[in-house]
């Protein structure tokens, strides 16, 4: 398998606090790679450096063979990194279909088209609908997103990320705030794309992580302490102490 995302010696500190300490990590094409770690481990900082919201102090990030360390957020999106957000960030005043079509539109050339009604753009809507179907939301296509449940918002997030037809999905806690049943549905949805889409999954929900991940990296105080298969991570003594042990206690 080829390497899709290559992180090398990434460093980021805020006034003396090392949020990211010498992190090197590879995501292989087609794998689901989970990043876990206790609160304050620096997962959010890592993600924001991967999607261009913050830039590292030193180190490099390569994606699909190109250096993207200093690329802007929109540029990264165009290269094929799609992200979902930890806090739901769908457009509340638009219908679900409109939400997804904004995503589709993003990769459909520029949007400096001022006159034609986007709501009547059959090709745009049809394409958006296929992504809603992929996450099972087609029935609610014409409902305003402010009127659907939290779990459905999360599914919509995934559809919006998929709609940009990315090479890699960067999923920032897709299970955040979900009940057991909703989480289960989300795991099922993500499983469908396993093997087809490369995913970097940052998640707290251990059931989800162990159900989905091919490999797991463990981040503690900004530092990567292990990267291995789920089974090996489960047995890793350092991980147990730093992370799982803490949870058990």
């Amino acid at each position: 398998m080829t390497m899709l995302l290559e992180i090398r010696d990434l460093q980021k500190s805020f006034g003396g606090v090392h949020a990211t300490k010498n992190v090197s990590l590879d995501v292989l094409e087609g794998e689901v790679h989970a990043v876990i770690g206790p609160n304050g481990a620096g997962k959010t900082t890592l993600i924001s450096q991967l999607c261009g919201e913050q830039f590292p102090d030193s180190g490099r990030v390569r994606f699909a063979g190109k250096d993207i360390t200093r690329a802007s957020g929109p540029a990264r999106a165009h290269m094929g990194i799609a992200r979902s957000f930890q806090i739901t960030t769908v457009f509340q005043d638009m219908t679900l279909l409109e939400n997804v079509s904004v995503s589709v539109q993003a990769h459909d050339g520029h949007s400096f088209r001022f006159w034609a009604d986007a709501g009547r753009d059959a090709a745009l809507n049809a394409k958006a609908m296929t992504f809603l179907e992929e996450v099972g939301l087609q029935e609610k296509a014409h409902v305003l997103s402010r009127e659907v449940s939290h779990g459905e918002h999360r599914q919509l997030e995934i559809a919006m990320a998929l709609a940009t037809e990315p090479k890699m999905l960067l999923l920032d806690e897709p299970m955040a705030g979900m009940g057991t049943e909703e989480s289960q549905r989300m795991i099922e949805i993500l499983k469908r794309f396993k093997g087809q889409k490369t995913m970097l999954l940052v998640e707290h929900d251990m059931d989800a992580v162990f159900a989905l991940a091919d490999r797991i990296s463990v981040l503690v105080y900004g530092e990567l302490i292990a990267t291995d298969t789920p089974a090996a991570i489960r047995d890793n003594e350092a991980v147990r102490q730093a992370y799982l042990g803490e949870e058990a206690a």
Partner: protein
Amino acid sequence: MNASDILTPKGLIAAAVILLLAVMPVLTTIADQAFYLDIATRILILAIAAVSLNLILGYGGMVSFGHAAFIGIGAYAVGIPIYYDEYSGWLHFPLAIAVSALYALITGAISLRTKGVHFIMITMAFSQMVFFLFISLEEYGGDDGLLIWSDSEFVDGVDVDDPTTFYYLCFISLMGALFLVHRIVNSRFGRVIRGSMSNDKRMKALGYPTYGYKLTAYVISGAICGYAGALMGNFTNFISPEMMGWTRSGELIFMVVLGGSGSVMGPIYGVLSFLLLEEFLPDFMDLFSKDAGIYWHLPFGIILVLVVLFVRGGINGLLDRWNR
């Protein structure tokens, strides 16, 4: 919008307001009240300005606190050529649009680097800059203002000096601006600016360089507002920097919010209620106590505060709730 939308209380009110505006000259002629045509004309012109502001404020989330500058620029684009005996409206209006658009491009390029309160304040500062620029231009009257002794001339036989003709020029312009903004907000471009209002970070993550889109919207808005300014110059036959003061920009924002920002008809309702209050609140107060009308700003200010505190979505929002 389709046929069934019109057959609701909200749709009927919208239709009635537009119809009323369409026949206003007939009504004022029958009633022999030329004064009311004046008020109605002012309403139309300010409504164009409010529609332009609504495009960026209501749909793009950009709180421009300097839109009065565009009205002033548009008006001076009529006044200054006439000062040099250039009377052609084919010069004035394109000039008003072009200069406004250019001003919007330059100031927007800087302002849109900032967000939130910084954006509000920097747009206001830029309009103050234009305000002081014209105050110091003694050649064009300085703070005394500039008299425009003629109207723009278009084609022979059409005289915009005639109140009814001018009224219909404004009416058609407003309908044009409404239609234009309606098309824009529903287009792909419109979705991008609505998306960036709702969540700019998300739009960037989807791959939109939102800055360019917002700047474009800002320029379009400025150009439309400059056009309204050119109409205003023709209407008042007088321009002064006072038209661009920051309180004027504040009033324009209030008109949009009062009517309901982010809705098609909102700006029109807002301007309508604002100007009618301004016109009739003093008279109304005089009924209770002689000369109480000079204090009309007091209830007006209280209404403003109450609207902000309690009326979400403005007049259009109230009609929405009535619809359900």
